[in-house]
C-alpha cells in the first residue's frame, strides 16, 4: 500500500509538472501574436527567432520529462538558427519542426491539464477504495496503479507529437544519398578527366615531339651529305612542332580556358557571346567586377562550359538567331540562365553535350534544369552552390 502510494505520487508529480508547463504555455502562447506583430515591424524582427528558441526549450523540456518517465529517448532535430537576421527568421518559419512543436504546445494545453485534473479526481477515490481493499483486506491495490497509466498516456502522446517527422530524416537521408552519389561521380569524372588529359598529351603533343626530335636528328646526320634532304627534314620537323603546339593549346583550353584566368567569368562569357555566331545579350547581376573577389576556379570553369555548350547547341541545333545569358550571384552561389529564340525540342539524349554539362554541374553539387518545349524557346538554368 505504501509502495503503491509512492508510485502514484511520482506519476502524479510528473502530471503536476506537465500541468505547470501547460499553464506556462498559456502565457507563452499569449506572447506569440506579439512576436508575430513585432516581426512585421523592422526593429522587432529579432523577436521571432527568439520566440522559436523558447518554443524549442519548452518542447525540449517535455521531451526530457517524457523520456525520464518512459525510459524511451525522443530524438530532437532542428535546423540551426544561425546567420543573418533574415536568414534566422526564414529558418525559424520554414523548419517543419517549428510547426510540429507548436501543434504539440496547443494540444498539450488540453491533455497536460486534463490528465492532471483526472489524476486529482481519481486520487480521493483511489485512496478510499484501495485504503479499504488493500489496507484493510490486504489485497493488491487496484486504483492507485491506474494513476500511473495517466502519466504513461502523457508520455506516449508527447512522444507521438514531439518525435521529428519522418519527412525530416527522410530528407536528410535523401540528401546524404545524393551527396554520396555526386561525390562518387565527381571523383569518377575527375579520374576520367585526368586519364583523358594524359592520353591526349601522350598520343598528341608527346608523340609529335618525339617525331620532331627524330627528324632534327636525321637532318643533322644528313646535313653534310645532302643539304637539300636535310632542309626538307627540318621543314617536316617544324610542321610537327606547330602541330604539337596546336594540340597543346586544345588540351589547355579543355582543362581551363586561358581567357577565364585573363578576364574572369564575365569577360570570358562575353567573349563566348561575341564569337557564338548569334546575337547574344549578356546580363550580369552582382558578380565580381575586375577588382572584386572571383568565384572559385572550378565554379568559373563549370559556368563557362555551361554557357559555351548552351550557346553551341543554340547555334547548331535550335535554329535560333538570338540568345540571352544571365549570370547572377545569389545567396547560395552562382546562377546561370541561358535562353535562346530557337525551335525547342532539345533532348539531353540527342547526342548533345548537355549530359556532360549535367555531370559537370552535379559534380559541384549543382542543379541543371532544361525546358525545351517543341516550338521553343529552350531555357537552361543552372545553379552552382558556393560561397565566395
Amino acid at each position, binding site marked *: 500500500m505504501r509502495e503503491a502510494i509512492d508510485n502514484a505520487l511520482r506519476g502524479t508529480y510528473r502530471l503536476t509538472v506537465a500541468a505547470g508547463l501547460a499553464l506556462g504555455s498559456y502565457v507563452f502562447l499569449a506572447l506569440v501574436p506579439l512576436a508575430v506583430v513585432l516581426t512585421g515591424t523592422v526593429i522587432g524582427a529579432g523577436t521571432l527567432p527568439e520566440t522559436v528558441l523558447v518554443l524549442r526549450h519548452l518542447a525540449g523540456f517535455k521531451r526530457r520529462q517524457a523520456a525520464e518517465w518512459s525510459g524511451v529517448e525522443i530524438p530532437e532535430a532542428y535546423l540551426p538558427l544561425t546567420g543573418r537576421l533574415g536568414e534566422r527568421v526564414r529558418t525559424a518559419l520554414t523548419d517543419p519542426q517549428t510547426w510540429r512543436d507548436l501543434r504539440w504546445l496547443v494540444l498539450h494545453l488540453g491533455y497536460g491539464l486534463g490528465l492532471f485534473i483526472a489524476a486529482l479526481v481519481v486520487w480521493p477515490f483511489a485512496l478510499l477504495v484501495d485504503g479499504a481493499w488493500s489496507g484493510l483486506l490486504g489485497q493488491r491495490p487496484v486504483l492507485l496503479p491506474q494513476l500511473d497509466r495517466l502519466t504513461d498516456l502523457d508520455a506516449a502522446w508527447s512522444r507521438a507529437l514531439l518525435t521529428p517527422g519522418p519527412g525530416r530524416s527522410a530528407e536528410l537521408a535523401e540528401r546524404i544519398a545524393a551527396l554520396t552519389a555526386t561525390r562518387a561521380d565527381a571523383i569518377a569524372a575527375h579520374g576520367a578527366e585526368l586519364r583523358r588529359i594524359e592520353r591526349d598529351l601522350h598520343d598528341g603533343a608527346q608523340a609529335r615531339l618525339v617525331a620532331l626530335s627524330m627528324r632534327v636528328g636525321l637532318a643533322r646526320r644528313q646535313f653534310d651529305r645532302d643539304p637539300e634532304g636535310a632542309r626538307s627534314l627540318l621543314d617536316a620537323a*617544324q610542321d610537327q*612542332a*606547330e602541330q604539337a*603546339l*596546336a594540340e597543346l*593549346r586544345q588540351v*589547355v*583550353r579543355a582543362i581551363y580556358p*586561358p*581567357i577565364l*584566368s*585573363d*578576364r574572369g567569368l564575365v*569577360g570570358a562569357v*562575353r*567573349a563566348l557571346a*561575341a*564569337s*557564338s*555566331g*548569334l*546575337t547574344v545579350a549578356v546580363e550580369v547581376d552582382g558578380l565580381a567586377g575586375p577588382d572584386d573577389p572571383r568565384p572559385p576556379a572550378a565554379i568559373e570553369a563549370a559556368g563557362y562550359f555551361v554557357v559555351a555548350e548552351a550557346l553551341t547547341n543554340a*547555334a547548331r541545333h535550335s535554329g535560333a538567331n538570338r540568345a540571352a545569358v544571365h549570370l547572377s550571384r545569389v545567396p547560395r552561389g552562382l546562377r546561370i540562365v541561358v535562353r535562346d529564340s530557337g525551335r525547342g525540342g532539345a533532348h539531353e539524349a540527342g547526342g548533345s553535350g548537355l549530359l556532360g554539362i549535367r555531370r559537370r554541374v552535379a559534380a559541384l553539387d549543382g542543379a541543371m534544369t532544361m525546358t525545351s518545349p517543341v516550338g521553343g524557346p529552350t531555357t537552361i538554368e543552372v545553379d552552382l552552390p558556393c560561397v565566395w
Partner: protein
Amino acid sequence: MRVVIAEDNALLREGLVLLLTSAGHEVVAAVVTGPEVLPAILEHRPEIAVLDVRLPPGLRDEGLRAALDARRKIPGQPVLVLSQYVEETYAAELLRGGAAGVGYLLKDRVGRVDEFLDALERVADGGTALDPEVVTELLTRRRDDPLESLTPREREVLKLMAEGRDNSTIARTLVVTERAVSKHIGNVFLKLGLPPSDSGHRRVLAVLAYLNHT
C-alpha cells in the same frame, strides 16, 4: 628597325632578341612586366613594339592593355601582340582603334622566321597581320549566307586578305598571277556586296567587319 619587346619568359625573350638582332633590327628595350611597357615605348619611340599578352604582375592580359594604352598615347604606334593562344575578343579590341599598324599572332608563328619578319615589317609599315587562326574562326562561325557562294579559291583569297596580306603576297602564296588575284578579290567583294577598296588596312577592316557582322 628599332624594336621594344616585352616578354616575361627568359627563354623566349632571349630568342626574340637573337632573332630580331640577327635579322638586322635593333632591340632598344626588352622589358619583363606590364607596367614597364608604356614608359619604354614613350622613351624609345620604337618603330614597332612586340608584346606578349600575358605579363607579370597579374599574368592576365597586361600586354594587351599596354598595347592599347600605347596606341591611345601615340596614335598609330605599330604594335605586334604575341600570345600562346588567340582570342577573337582580343583581336576585336586591338582593331577597334583601326587596323593600321596592328599585328596579333600566335607565338608559334615566330618559328616561321621569314614569315614572322615579313609580318613584323608589314605592321611597322602601317599594315595588318592577323593570325590565320582568328580568321579561320571568323570564317567557320558564319552559317548563312553569301560566304557559301564563294569558290574554294575565293575563300582562300578572302582568308589571306583578312590576315592582312597584300596582293603580291597572296599571289605568291597561292602560286597564281597578281592579275588572277585581283580578279578573285573583285569577285569576293561583289559576292559579299562590299564596296571595292584598295589593298591597305581599310580593306582588312572591311573584310573583318563583314565577317564579324552576324
